[in-house]
């Protein structure tokens, strides 16, 4: 890919996928500042990998694969953020500000918190489900068969709904 084409590609990628990438980061990491770091790292990895894009998969699958793998790598380098229940300190301001927030914002925040209670692999999968990816696409990104993915997704959805109802 030539330099100019590469630049065009990158601009288009950022334009079309930045929202999905950011949401994946927020699903994976509850802490917004850490999610920002991960977001920057993903954009950097996408930019770095552009030359190696051969078009064997759709550009969206390619971007999601890089995002998910970078999230896995980010987690291994920042082990303290891995699958940890948020300390009370985090929950108190959440409870405290709940009344002041708009209903939608509060629900979203609660959803993020519930996702943070899931295990690492479930957080990865749910971030793709929330992006409306099909079973086929998710299995291509994760690298497992779609039947397995279907069973897992149903289990994770049920868990999320249960956690959301607990409040």
């Amino acid at each position: 890919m030539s330099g100019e084409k590469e630049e065009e590609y990158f601009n288009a990628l950022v334009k079309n996928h930045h929202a999905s990438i950011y949401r994946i980061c927020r699903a994976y990491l509850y802490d917004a500042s850490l999610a920002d770091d991960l977001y920057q790292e993903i954009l950097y990895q996408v930019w770095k990998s552009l030359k190696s894009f051969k078009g064997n998969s759709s550009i969206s699958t390619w971007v999601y694969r890089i995002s998910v793998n970078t999230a896995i790598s980010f987690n291994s380098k920042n082990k303290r953020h891995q699958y940890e229940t948020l300390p009370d300190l985090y929950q108190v301001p959440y409870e405290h500000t709940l009344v002041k927030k708009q209903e939608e914002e509060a629900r979203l925040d609660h959803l993020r918190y519930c996702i943070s209670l899931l295990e690492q692999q479930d957080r990865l999968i749910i971030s793709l489900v929330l992006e409306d990816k099909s079973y086929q696409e998710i299995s291509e990104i994760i690298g497992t068969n779609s039947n397995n993915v279907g069973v897992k997704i149903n289990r994770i959805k049920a868990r999320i709904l249960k956690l959301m109802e607990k409040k």
Partner: protein
Amino acid sequence: MNFEDLQHSWKNQPVKDPGDTDQLKLAMETSWNKHQRKVLRTNLFLSICFLMTCVGLAFIYFSYRAHFGWAFQLSMLFIYILMFIFLAVSWKSYGFRKENRAENSTSYICYQLKKLQWQRKTITVYGRVYVFLLWIDFMCYTWEVTSDGSALFRFSAMAVITFYIIVLMIWQRLTQQKKALKSIDELTSDFSQLKNKLEN
């Protein structure tokens, strides 16, 4: 409440503005160039050091081989073996840095596991091979330089050096190596667990 409602809220959440993509690219290019320069400098430095050592050793060998015996020749041979093992291990370790993040997550995790296995092997197996070759070199060198002394003096010198190497090895194993292996084992266990849970 159903999942579709949650999904709708999720997709409508405010997202971070990527800002000016030109600025972003510039920042990435700067970071990438900095990284490349660092890699180039390190590689150049290592290659020059390696070449200089090889030339220096060859010079010593051809200048003094007439004055020394078999131990000298053997120590030279082992130093070269040690250097080439070091070079091969360095190249293979460097190769593992070129990871492909665009492959599926299961393959990516398998690659990370292979990388961790290699790091473990480098610390354990190659670490021991390195120390063993270094020990042989010291022994040959001591044998050569104490050729005029008594047998007691020669074997005492060899014993002191052996003791020193053993103490250093044990100290290193109990401190740095233990810490590095603990971290590698933890990561290996995490990645294996993640891989199994994604697959099953």
